[in-house]
């Protein structure tokens, strides 16, 4: 099915939901402030500090070994300076996304969902660093939010989504393909529509839409390929939604791998096996980050 048709269907689905989560007040004010010309980092920091939960989450996301800052970030202002104004918008949106779905991810165990999301964020950043992609923060945030559509289906179409999950259990079937059969669209397009509603910058909307088919991307196919690969690797290394989807892939045949290889030929030398084993080693870091973000017991 054509992507435009899938998006049309997703729009209809999202439009029917009356109680769609909205962006928390402070985050919204931050976004408005960022739209103004000549905004100062101090102003943004002062505003963000009025929301303690958002501040704490931003700090945890940036100070974790999952993100690996070059040096410890001790204050929100330093965090904002470190990131630069260009990333504050995404960070405010990402913490909003976390707040909106912090208590319930419907059909999913919320912890499994966020562990996968932060896992993909971490691996996206690692791949970005390995290939020398210019904006590693963008890769990190893209990874965290790539499955926005999954949490929508899981929350607002809970029963049908559970049926989808049951039908693919232990089968080498792609979740998105099965979703299209049941909903006429997949979590990629639904996430895209939600991200647009929330005014995520276009490049993030594209990653959400194309994280399973980076070849369709127009703005930043490399970023889409990075997140696609990170998603695949997390799917086979215990950051896989508690095993709800049985992922399998032949790396060298993956379009994402080919997109990246074309751009970064030295990727051919990547020690894929070791990459997987190191990913296993990093799983506790991801779990710790998720439990600290939600203040659950570590």
């Amino acid at each position, binding site marked *: 099915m054509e992507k435009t048709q899938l998006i049309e269907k997703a729009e209809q689905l999202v439009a029917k939901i009356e109680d769609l989560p909205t962006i928390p007040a402070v985050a919204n004010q931050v976004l408005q402030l960022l739209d103004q010309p000549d905004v100062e980092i101090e102003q943004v920091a002062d505003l963000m500090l009025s929301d303690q939960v958002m501040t704490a989450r931003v700090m945890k996301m940036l100070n974790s070994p999952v993100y690996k800052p070059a040096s410890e970030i001790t204050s929100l202002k330093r965090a904002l300076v470190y990131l630069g104004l260009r990333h504050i918008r995404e960070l405010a949106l990402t913490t909003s996304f976390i707040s909106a779905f912090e208590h319930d991810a419907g059909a999913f165990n919320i912890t499994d969902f966020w562990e996968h999301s932060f896992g993909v964020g971490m691996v996206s950043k690692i791949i970005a660093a390995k290939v020398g992609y210019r904006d590693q923060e963008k890769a990190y945030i893209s990874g965290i939010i790539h499955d926005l559509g999954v949490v929508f289906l899981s929350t607002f179409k809970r029963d049908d989504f559970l049926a989808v999950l049951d039908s693919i259990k*232990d089968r080498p079937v792609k979740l998105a393909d099965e979703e299209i059969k049941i909903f006429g669209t997949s979590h990629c397009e639904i996430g895209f529509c939600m991200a647009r509603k929330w005014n995520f910058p276009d490049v993030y909307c594209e990653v959400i839409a194309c994280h399973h088919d980076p070849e369709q991307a127009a703005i930043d196919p490399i970023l889409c390929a990075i997140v696609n690969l990170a998603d695949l690797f997390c*799917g*086979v290394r215990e950051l*896989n939604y508690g095993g709800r989807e*049985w992922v*399998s892939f032949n*790396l060298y045949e993956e379009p994402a791998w080919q997109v990246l290889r074309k751009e970064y030929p030295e990727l051919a030398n990547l020690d894929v*096996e*070791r990459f997987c*084993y190191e990913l296993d080693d990093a799983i506790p870091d991801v779990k710790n980050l998720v439990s600290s973000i939600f203040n659950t017991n570590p």
Partner: protein
Amino acid sequence: MAKELIVAISDKDFELLRDFIYNICGMYFHISKKYFLESRLARRMDATGVKTHADYYLLLKSPRGTEELKYLMDEITTNETYFFRNVPQLNAMENKLLPEIVEAKNKMGFRKLRIWSAASSSGEEAYTMAMILLEKRATLLKDWIIEIVGTDINETVVAQAKEGVYNAYSVRNIPDMYKRKYIREDNGKFILAPEVKKFVTFNKLNLYDDSKMIFMKSFDFIFCANVLIYFDTASKSKVVQHFYNNLQPYGYFFVGQSESLHGVNDKFKTVHFPGGFAYKK
């Protein structure tokens, strides 16, 4: 055994030794196994009289290191095998790889499956395959010929494999459904059903023997766990090339958990599945 003094290993020394072992043997030590490595290193440090991990690392890198590394690998790999050992591998085979191969061969009208357990030890891996495939005789593998070959360099274990009698440790991981059907307990011994045994043949084989290796032809699945780690890079490459040649174009080659062929053979491609990966031509 005398109790060795276990010296806590620093993160830096752990990384040094982990990278050294990985680069030479192709086995990755997960951080979760740090304490295990620490205790096994203590034994080797005690035996060699080396006091610190840093000095032990230097010993491994010295001319005496090749021999010492073999002792260390003996300490850190458990040679004892058991049934249903690598569950992610078995799941991948059942869920995806086997149905895929069956489909490809059905199209060609060639209904024969060949599997090689290339370091079969006392036979647990080969017989695990036999049990799984036996369960599919009524469905996926109806009217198929199944050949499972187990080989090992050690004649004693080959004889044990042929006998098919096991202890409680070997059978502890067998799912109940299989255990009820194919294992009979007799006086603390666990005896394998003849219907499983008949699918498998065991032979002595040195993986390094070119004249024999060229005859191990046309396999759909080859398993070789925890053996290549003992070979130097040149020998490893040679043996893996034989596996490559002896594998069907659509077949899969499996190594052990935490093993890697990176830098050994650049023709094999990785195919990933939950909890592991296999190699494909």
